[in-house]
């Protein structure tokens, strides 16, 4: 008896899915691109060169001069190194300088300066006999002797006294784009925070001082006493952009709107409402914990800058309190509406960096370390 998966197999084998619109045109266009790419031309000459070079090497090995006496271990200085090399040249082989070709550029100096001196001084071998160094043919040097470059010829590797050059491989530190962006953003944020901290702003805001020791000045009305206050839980939402860096890593930024509402109660004036509006620009590195077609669970950390864009006190406009910087850690769930768009719900923990200046009294000033819940639309810019 057939199993249910056999039925599934039979059904899907025979099934022809409706093709996406424009797929044939896209296929033909891609096919043209592939076939338009010029095929690599095969040239016969390189293939003929291989056997020619092999034959040349074979002829050289067969007909090359016999091995010369190995140089005795000696103090290897550049001058003696030249002497060693010149000693190995058998005097029977005539060496003629190539005739200068008229109109050609004279090559840079190849003649080692030490060789000249050695030739003049002569050389005494181990047996004590004075030998003359065979003449080195003149090589056309540059017109300007100062341009001559002293060249030390290759030192034979067989000598045990020749120290090998110490080769240190350069350390290559690869910084991926994600690390670069995060580090650069962190640096920018630190610079901005330090610049904001040092600036003095004239605010008329009746709010607390955001000082590291935690002292807060309450808003007051002349001739009245503040009897109580309460802050409502801030509301945040916005549009988020996700830039995938790799399969699981992505950089999240965007624009959020935060609303901070507070009520202050006075003995005589009654209750006064304060409403403060912020635009937040977060920058975060997120890690996808798990995902499927419809859902994505992630966590990340980063920083955010909150710009106060509006404040009202009892319905009247009030001075804004500038920029706040915070460090954030967030986790969230994203519901994928399509490949590039999703809705997210994101609880986050943030710590507002003390700015040392006067700020409005809000939920944030009372709770520098605060929990918030954000939601909104997320746009994924591209696939990893």
């Amino acid at each position: 008896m057939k199993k249910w998966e056999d039925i599934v197999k039979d059904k899907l084998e025979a099934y022809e899915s409706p093709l996406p619109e424009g797929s044939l045109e896209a296929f033909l266009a891609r096919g043209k691109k592939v076939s338009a790419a010029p095929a690599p031309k095969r040239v016969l000459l390189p293939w003929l060169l291989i056997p020619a070079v092999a034959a040349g090497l074979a002829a050289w090995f067969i007909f090359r001069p016999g091995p010369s006496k190995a140089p005795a271990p000696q103090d290897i200085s550049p001058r003696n190194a030249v002497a060693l090399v010149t000693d190995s040249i058998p005097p029977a082989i005539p060496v003629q300088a190539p005739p200068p070709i008229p109109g050609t550029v004279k090559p840079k100096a190849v003649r080692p300066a030490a060789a000249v001196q050695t030739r003049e001084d002569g050389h005494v071998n181990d047996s004590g006999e004075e030998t003359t160094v065979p003449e080195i043919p003149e090589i056309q040097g540059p017109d300007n002797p100062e341009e001559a470059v002293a060249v030390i010829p290759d030192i034979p590797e067989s000598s045990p006294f020749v120290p090998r050059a110490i080769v240190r491989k350069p350390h290559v530190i690869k910084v991926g784009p994600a690390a670069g962006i995060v580090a650069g953003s962190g640096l920018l944020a630190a610079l901005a925070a330090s610049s904001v901290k040092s600036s003095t702003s004239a605010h008329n805001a009746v709010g607390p001082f955001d000082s590291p020791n935690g002292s807060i000045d309450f808003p007051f009305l002349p001739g009245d006493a503040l009897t109580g206050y309460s802050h409502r839980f801030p509301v945040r939402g916005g549009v988020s952009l996700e830039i995938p860096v790799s399969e699981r890593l992505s950089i999240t930024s965007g624009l959020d709107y935060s609303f901070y509402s507070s009520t202050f109660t006075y003995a005589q004036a009654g209750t006064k409402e304060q409403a403060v509006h912020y635009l937040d620009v977060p920058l975060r590195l997120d890690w996808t914990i798990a995902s499927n077609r419809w859902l994505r669970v992630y966590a990340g950390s980063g920083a955010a800058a909150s710009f106060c864009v509006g404040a009202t006190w009892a319905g009247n406009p009030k001075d804004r309190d500038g920029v706040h910087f915070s460090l954030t850690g967030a986790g969230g769930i994203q519901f994928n509406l399509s490949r590039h768009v999703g809705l997210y719900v994101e609880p986050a923990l943030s710590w507002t960096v003390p700015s040392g200046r006067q700020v409005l009294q809000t939920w944030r000033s009372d709770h520098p370390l605060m929990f918030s819940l954000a939601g909104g639309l997320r746009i994924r810019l591209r696939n990893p």
Partner: protein
Amino acid sequence: MYKELNEQELAGYCCEKDPKAEEELYKRYAARVYTLCRRYMSNDDDAADLMQDTLLQALGKMQTYTYRGEGSLGAWINRIAVNKAVSLIKQRKRRTLLLEQWGRETSVEPSPEEVEKIPEEKLLAWISGLPDVRRAVFNMYCLDGYSHREIADELGISEKGSASMLTRARKQLKREIVRYLKEKQP
């Protein structure tokens, strides 16, 4: 004229880079290949990309195709698609969330007649909703005839792991089928 060509002749014309033959190849096999790709991929966009890449690769390597009878060209193209899909899944290696209900395991086996009535689009949606590796194992074992050993070699998992993934995939699909049939009952 190209519609009457058999597979061997069509492959020959494709080797000569005949545009009409390439178009005919697409028209004959794209839909089936797309279905196969939708089985292996988690979304239709990835499946469409995979289908295009498969057919382009088939055209590029047509000179390596050997005619082995009617249907061999389709099977050869399907094999390319499966290989590309598996390598994509291996590359991604994403752990995916399981959208499964935590409840009592259903012991009801759907009957072949009941499964026959399920639309193909539903089946494709359920299969593509499986986690990546589970989906690949189910497709390769149940639908494409691979053995657990071959699946283990391709995906870089153990044979036991392949068998375990297959069991879970079957359970998940069975649950979807039973739930669908219950909802459809009058």
